[in-house]
């Protein structure tokens, strides 16, 4: 069915320059699911547009339609006032439209030069490797000064934060065609604080050179800091467009349809006696490394810059805890992975199977897993975490990223685990979901569970009662109670702390 020309309903009040990209009444259906329901979106040269909304609001779908990786079901697509019918990533590339995907798109088995070659056709003939290396290194230097990324290393061997930096740099790298517009989907979620700041500054300077950017992120402060215009999506539709300069964080959250709950922190530094028995007790590894302790009922945080040994320590604590609990020496443990694609979900399975795998032993009745008990557990926790899914039998991959993450949370919470390790699990999760999960973590801790939480988001750390700030592989500083505030954490991360 071809839609007749639709009269554009709402046009933003001011249209300063002709649009680089202008799409009208775009629909995208996946079977019965309407991911986009009549979206009008335009972006001019040098404009920075923020795209915000809950998980499953259609942000990623819209981005994929713009980038050509997903074909729209209907709607018009104008590129510099020329009507485009067939759109593909290849053509997008020719027109200087680039994309930084949330699920990184680099080839893990190739090095940086080879990955750069993939999107740059002119890099061929003798010496292409050297030239490709120079191109990516130059862009990396421009965006992330002092990045220290080794060019000859396979992408798979790089930590996720560095991979993200390379992905971003590749999108901005130039050979024959110039970059006109870059779409960034959660670009800072895997970056450390410093790299995120560098990227935001670069986006501004790129905008001054006429490069348009579409920034999708759940970090609203970044949106407000860097964007000219903010577009809010709810349920596959654009519900608001605002000038970012005249928008407050609270107003933005309200537009997304969720009220940011005032943080109700319980600072428990005065009553250490209420803590349960110690369940994590790991001596430091040499000079300057604090021993890590956590008791039942506590939420402790691992802070510091990305890649300073937090994740490695978390893994080590988890595997020690697992061995000890297997011998009955310690309570059971569970782990919530942040890299859900490769370490979290079981792609062939339904929501229910994914949710219960950690608990299958406990679900046995007379030797076999009881389907009834299994479904009851899956349904209860899927409801409790408010997972947005048609049913618990839906394949996990058809859920949005944030909802997949909720299932992984549910997997740990539904289990018998007393100690739960969180490996930066809220990457790319929307504000409303975050608040729900924070609430849940606090109430589960109050019921006597212990959480050890690694996160790169400063705000998130304020949920913790005690922090270990990591620096160069060591737990360098411990912060408690009122000491936990962003400036203090940053200071300790960079080695300025005195404790």
């Amino acid at each position, binding site marked *: 069915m071809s839609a007749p020309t639709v009269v554009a309903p709402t046009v933003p009040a001011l249209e300063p320059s002709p649009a680089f990209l202008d799409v009208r009444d775009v629909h995208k259906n996946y*079977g019965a699911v309407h991911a986009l329901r009549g979206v009008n979106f335009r972006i001019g040269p040098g404009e920075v547009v923020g795209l915000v909304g809950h998980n499953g609001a259609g942000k990623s779908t819209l981005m994929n339609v713009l980038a050509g990786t997903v074909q729209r079901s209907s709607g018009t697509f104008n590129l510099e006032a020329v009507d485009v019918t067939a759109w593909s990533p290849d053509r997008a590339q020719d027109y200087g439209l680039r994309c930084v995907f949330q699920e990184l798109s680099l080839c893990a088995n190739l090095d940086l030069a080879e990955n750069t070659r993939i999107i740059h056709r002119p890099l061929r003939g003798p010496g292409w490797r050297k030239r490709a290396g120079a191109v990516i290194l130059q862009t990396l230097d421009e965006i992330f000064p002092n990045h220290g990324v080794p060019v000859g290393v396979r992408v798979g061997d790089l930590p996720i934060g560095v991979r993200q930096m390379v992905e971003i740099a590749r999108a901005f790298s130039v050979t024959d065609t110039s970059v006109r517009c870059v779409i960034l989907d959660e670009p800072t979620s895997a970056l450390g604080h410093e790299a995120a700041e560098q990227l935001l500054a670069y986006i501004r300077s790129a905008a001054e050179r006429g490069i348009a950017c579409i920034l999708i992120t759940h970090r609203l402060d970044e949106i407000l800091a860097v964007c000219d215009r903010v577009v809010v999506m709810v349920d596959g539709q654009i519900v608001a467009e605002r000038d970012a300069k005249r928008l407050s964080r609270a107003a933005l959250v309200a537009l997304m349809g969720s009220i940011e709950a005032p943080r109700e922190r319980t600072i428990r530094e005065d009553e250490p006696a209420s803590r349960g028995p110690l369940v994590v007790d790991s001596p430091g590894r040499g000079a300057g490394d604090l021993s890590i302790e956590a008791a039942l009922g506590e939420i402790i945080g691992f802070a510091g810059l990305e890649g300073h040994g937090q994740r490695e320590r978390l893994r080590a604590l988890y595997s020690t805890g697992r061995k000890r609990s297997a011998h009955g020496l310690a309570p059971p443990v569970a782990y919530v992975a942040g890299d859900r694609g*490769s*370490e979290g979900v079981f792609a062939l*399975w339904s929501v229910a199977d994914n949710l219960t795998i950690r608990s*299958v032993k406990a679900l046995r009745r007379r030797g076999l*897993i009881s*389907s009834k008990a299994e479904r009851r557990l899956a349904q209860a926790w899927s409801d409790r975490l408010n997972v947005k899914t048609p049913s618990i039998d839906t394949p996990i991959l058809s859920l949005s990223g944030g909802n997949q993450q909720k299932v992984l949370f549910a997997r740990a919470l539904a289990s018998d685990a007393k100690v739960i390790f969180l490996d930066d699990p809220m990457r790319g999760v929307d504000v409303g979901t975050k608040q729900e999960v924070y609430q849940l973590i606090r109430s589960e801790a109050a019921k006597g569970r212990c959480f050890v939480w690694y996160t790169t988001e400063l705000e998130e750390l304020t949920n913790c009662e005690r922090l270990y700030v990591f620096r160069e592989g060591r737990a360098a500083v411990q912060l408690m109670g009122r000491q936990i505030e962003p400036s203090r954490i940053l200071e300790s991360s960079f080695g300025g702390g005195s404790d």
Partner: protein
Amino acid sequence: MSLAHPRVVIAPWTYGFIVALAMWIATTVYSGLGSAGSTLSAALAFGAFSVTVGTGQMLVIASGPGNIDLSVPSVMALAAYVSMTIMHESNSMTAPGLLAALAVGAVAGALNFLAITALRLPPIIATLAWSFVFQSFTFNFGGEATLKPPEILSWFAVWRVGGVQAMPVAVMILTLVMMIVLRRSVFGRQLLAAGQSERAADLAGVEVGRVRLTAYMLCGTAAALTGFLLSGFTGGAALNMGDTYLMESIAVVVLGGTSVAGGQANPLGIWGAALFFNLMATMLNTFHFEAGVRFLLTGVLIILIVAIAPRARGS
């Protein structure tokens, strides 16, 4: 808006059954209605052996990408030789002989897994290397001679209860048990989890190493059991008795709808594929094709089935 065409969707694993049925009909049409029963019972009897080996191979293949057991033929022969030597054609020694065969299979599976994890060898190399070692053991046990089974074993292999062959029925029960194990047991669930993503399984509390060890040991045991029963069926253990089962054990698993990428297994589909293989051999024999043409047609048919069968969406 275009609605999906209302079309009957047939699961990939049923194609084996459908093609097998077609071949049975073709054979019967060619050689007369009287042969229909004997054609089917022969296919069921031989199919039972393919299914037993294939079920073991399926567990290994499902345990993760790259996992495969190429030592299956040599384990079959070794287990058969060891058990025949122990039984020495004596009916009363049949039980110890069976246990010895199963033990040989379990140990062989454990050795395979050990070489894979301890020496970090790719499974294809580790199991191939062990198969040479097992062959040499077998050779030392019996040399070129065929060792005869005790009477009771030969009798069991062709035993019929009220006209129904007992052994294929026993193997069907094994298939049923395996379906329940995969869906409802902790081992089955953890095997499929480990097969999909080793890292995710590890972080979800699955002892990936232990689960894979079990898969390899069960595969060895299944091969050993097949070797034991096959010597009863064919009148003795021979050095090359397992040779045809190397490719067949893998082919029936894959044609049966199990994913080579791991994490997904289909025990029922193995029966369809095994019947297809055996009925096709019968059909081509009935048509008096030469060996060359038979192999050619076998290959072409396999490619056709895999190409036509709608594939499950990959991850």
